[in-house]
């Protein structure tokens, strides 16, 4: 991946925030919100919880931003905080599997928007099935593979970052991801053929 010469690095943005330029934290949010919300969504299986927790994670990180060590990557730090928060929440309450269709305060059902090129009733149905199938496939993975798959495919962390975050040798990370993807491929067989 080539880096835009104009685009400041995460570490430069953090330095700017610490110098008093609060707006630059918004740039960090823009950069990571999609990955963070999706990562938490797959862990917590609930879109509202994922958004709320992502907000909490950003706030938590902001509060202790001065403790950020620039020799590590910001993304590694952010997702470590997110992972700890998610694990805490999972431990606190026993999660029940929920569908992607959720009820709002008025009792109306509301579908979360999963972007896709598919349109029309059949496409919508397919999207819904796909969303559920992905969740089921990910849930079906053993935890050690599941967290690595999410860190790689939802959080989009590099192998080295995952290795550092999990405290695992790089080779182990690659190995587990290899096996995890194979399992995922088998579980998503119906969807990889369409």
């Amino acid at each position: 991946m080539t880096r835009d010469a104009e685009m400041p690095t995460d570490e430069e943005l953090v330095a700017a925030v610490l110098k008093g330029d609060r707006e630059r934290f918004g740039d960090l949010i823009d950069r990571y919100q999609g990955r963070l919300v999706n990562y938490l969504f797959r862990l917590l299986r609930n879109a509202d919880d994922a958004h709320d927790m992502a907000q909490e994670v950003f706030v938590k990180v902001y509060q202790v931003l001065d403790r950020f060590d620039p020799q590590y990557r910001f993304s590694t730090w952010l997702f470590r905080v997110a992972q700890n928060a998610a694990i805490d929440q999972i431990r606190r309450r026993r999660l029940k599997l929920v569908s992607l269709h959720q009820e709002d305060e008025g009792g109306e059902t509301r579908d979360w928007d999963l972007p896709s090129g598919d349109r029309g009733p059949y496409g919508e149905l397919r999207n819904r099935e796909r969303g559920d199938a992905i969740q089921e496939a990910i849930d079906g993975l053993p935890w050690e593979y599941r967290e690595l798959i999410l860190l790689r495919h939802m959080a989009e962390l590099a192998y080295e970052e995952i290795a550092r975050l999990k405290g695992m040798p790089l080779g182990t990370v690659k190995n587990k991801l290899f096996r995890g993807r194979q399992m995922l491929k088998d579980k998503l067989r119906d969807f990889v053929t369409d």
Partner: protein
Amino acid sequence: MKKPDHDTFREWLQLETAGDTDLSPERRESLASHVAECPECQAERRDLAHVSQVLARGRLAVRADFRQSVIEALPAAGWESRHPRTWRFPGSVAVLFGLVAAAFFGRGTAASGSPIWGALLAIASFFRATLVAGLGLMQASWKGLGLVCGEIFSSWPALAAFAVLVICLNLLLLSLVRRRAAAPSRH
């Protein structure tokens, strides 16, 4: 160099699909020539690409107001108050005050010793005067409070009027709290 086996190529395929930068151009080249001849690896590459696509399509769209809600939720972090910028203005005012005090008060006392010593004495006198004034004000306000209390407790009608005032203020506060609790919270 020993030619990689089929399993190694399968591993490289995964790295390639995942966009891993570890895969060197030589390995990519070697992989491409292996895949061109191996139907199993061709199918594997196709499947892995589809898995990545399916995962990408299953991504949740982030709420449009998410960024704004995070920015609004950001508290004043502890490190912000420790930042030099926070103390720049009050610090500058203190230094300016010291300089002005030294310039005005130091001049008069310079004759009794060195100008710096005179300025320090003058600043100390100023702080002492400020302290005395503060204590005086506090004493006066306590005295004022005593007078008000004396007035209230001097007669039954005054005491009753005061009680009605206190009850009304409490009712007003209660209605405000209830209205705030009833208002829908923005999420």
